[in-house]
């Protein structure tokens, strides 16, 4: 005790201070620390929840990005396939059109050849007929003066004989 006294510590005062400290400690614990800790705990929980949600969000975002990339790749593949198909179809269509046009042209040429041949044949026939008609017309004109009464009488005699035989 003397030692404490020598250092200036009064035990009554120390006791009072201890009691004061305990009272204050109790009061603080009772009315300040507990609500404050609860508040801090709630705040920490909210932050943890926020962090967790942020991580989940980031994860979802990453997944969405991966999905988006995948979808874009699929869309690009599909588009490439469509373009390739369209190109192939276009080439095939162009070939078909060309073939059809060629066939049609060939057919038209053949028809034209047949028609030309037919018309040439017809023209030839008409020319032959015309030549024959002119020849016979000339023959008729020249024969008109050749046949006279004598030839007419011969024909009448022949007709009479023929009809007599048939009667």
């Amino acid at each position: 005790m003397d030692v404490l006294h020598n250092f200036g510590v009064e035990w009554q005062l120390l006791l009072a201070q201890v009691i004061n400290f305990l009272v204050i400690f109790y009061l603080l614990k009772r009315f300040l620390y507990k609500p404050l800790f609860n508040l801090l705990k709630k705040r920490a929980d909210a932050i943890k929840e926020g962090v967790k949600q942020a991580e989940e969000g980031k994860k979802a975002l990453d997944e969405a990005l991966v999905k988006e990339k995948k979808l874009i790749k699929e869309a690009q593949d599909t588009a490439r396939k469509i373009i390739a198909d369209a190109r192939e179809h276009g080439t095939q269509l162009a070939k078909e059109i060309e073939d059809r046009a060629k066939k049609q042209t060939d057919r038209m040429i053949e028809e034209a050849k047949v028609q030309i041949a037919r018309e040439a044949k017809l023209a030839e026939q008409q020319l032959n007929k015309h030549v024959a008609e002119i020849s016979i017309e000339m023959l008729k004109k020249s024969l008109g003066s050749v046949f006279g009464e004598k030839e007419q009488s011969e024909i009448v005699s022949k007709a009479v004989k023929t009809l007599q035989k048939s009667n």
Partner: protein
Amino acid sequence: MINKKKLQNLVSESYKDGQLDSETVNMLADHMNRQTLKQYISSLKQTEKKKQVTITSPRSLNEADKKALQDLFPKKKIMYILDPEMINGIQITDNDKEFEINLNRTFNDIINHLSRYD
């Protein structure tokens, strides 16, 4: 309607000495209705056609030829027609029988033959 036999009798009565008698024809026609008259005229035409021979030639026939033809058809009336287009030949039509030598037609047949088989 008049039957064929009666009609033939009426047509026979219409002729006197082988010639059509106009008085008889007029008298008969006055007593006929439209339908019978049509049949009577048609029969007369057929009978006239049977009694007539048509001879077509490019020039007039001489008397000897005409006589030869008349001897060939003694009871028929001969009608002569001129057709210079024939060039040379003769066409004799006796009712539905026909005899023909026609140079013009022969030429035309040749032209048709040539144009058909060319």
